[in-house]
């Protein structure tokens, strides 16, 4: 399982990458895509939608089941990775490249884990 050091992680298996300019990108972790299996559909919010940390921002569907994606931050959707709508399997292939949304105007965040703490959490769940 790949857990890059420069990212922060939620207990619900999202990653977040804070840029220096007060924006952040959000995606699903390698552990999440592995557990979900082949992804075949992504339902994402729209640009301008308000996100609240700990609440759902969208969902992903594998062949077998649907899973909610929880927002690690409170803010406004600045951009959506439209490429994923036609190619959800990119999340399986490259979970840390396949960002879901970019968020701006961030005013709050979940309790976030560093790579080591997130690895420990995943080890407990396995």
């Amino acid at each position, binding site marked *: 399982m790949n857990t890059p050091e420069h990212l922060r992680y939620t207990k619900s298996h999202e990653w977040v990458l804070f840029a220096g300019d007060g924006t952040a990108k959000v995606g699903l972790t390698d552990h999440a895509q592995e557990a979900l299996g082949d992804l075949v559909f992504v339902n994402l919010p729209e640009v301008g939608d308000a996100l609240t940390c700990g609440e759902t921002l969208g969902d992903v569907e594998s*062949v*077998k089941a649907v899973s909610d994606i929880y927002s690690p931050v409170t803010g406004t959707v600045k951009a959506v990775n439209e490429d994923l709508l036609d190619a959800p399997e990119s999340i399986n292939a490259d979970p840390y490249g396949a960002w879901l949304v970019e968020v701006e105007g961030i005013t709050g965040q979940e309790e976030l884990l560093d790579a080591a703490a997130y690895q420990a959490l995943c080890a407990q769940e396995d």
Partner: protein
Amino acid sequence: MERKTPLYDRHVALGGKIVPFAGYLLPVQYPAGVIAEHMAVRTAAGLFDVSHMGELVFTGPDALDNLNHLLTNDFTNMYDGQVRYSPMCNESGGCVDDLIVYKVREGVYLVVVNAANREKDAAWMAARLTGDCQMEDRSDSLAQVALQGPRAKEILLRLLPEETLPKKYYSFVREADVSGVPCLISRTGYTGELGYELYCANAGAEKLWDLLLEAGRDLGLLPCGLGARDTLRLEAAMPLYGHELTEDIGPLEAGLDFAVKLGKPDFVGKAGLEARLPLQRTRVGLEVTGRGIVREHQDIYIGDRLAGQTTSGTHAPFLGKAVAMAYLSPEDAALGTAVEVDVRGRRVPCKVVDLPFYKQ
């Protein structure tokens, strides 16, 4: 506490993701993943552990009469070595289970039932046996694997001669010898592809599994889990008990008329089946025309009117689109009818399409 099939250690060794299913620990998928496993069955071959299925053996001079009384199909004109599908109805014309019957010879039949219903079925049937007929539950001593896909025959021919393979769809051979493992082999399956199901004693299961995997390795054979088993049967529009068939939903609504012989003498559920005519609902296929995946137990709307519910749904990997099965009134079931399915609060446009979604 879930039981293990004789192949449990193989699944773990192959990296299978183990889940509890119908009282057994079984792989939902292997490392290749559900889509790759599904595609292997459509284009090459797949191997499934279906040892969880239940096997009931009926013996005695009155075995045939009992099966004809308990089940909706007619087993009178079967040859030795023939297989026949049948629903088993309750008194109201709903389904206790659906199953397949193997005629071994006069007075000896093997009945293969769904794992989740095995105990229910055995009790239901035992309570209704009449005359000289014994029923024995052999499930715990028999293993079963399914070899499915266009290259299934080629793989089996590497292990045994052609004359020992069942030729016709829904026929079987007993006492086949697969490199020392005695097997019953039938040309049956649950994937919509050419394929075989092989039954053997538990002790031979690992050897049989290894032989088949090895024989098919260079032909693209993959071990397949429950995930692909479900997407394959759904793409082929085969009903699954608990979804398209239930104690409430009967075989006529499901479109299984070919296996319901209302013309034969009285049988369990006959009056209930007749009382359901004309049918209030019928099984339909839905294809998602909007964006999203429709799943089971989701409400179907035509305009503001609640028109029915889905019973199964998924992304169909070979077809590359989202499909579902559902029940609608005959008036709403015309091909091309536009409907919307409530997918967790979001209305997803779908249309009624012909079944099966996929045909070999």
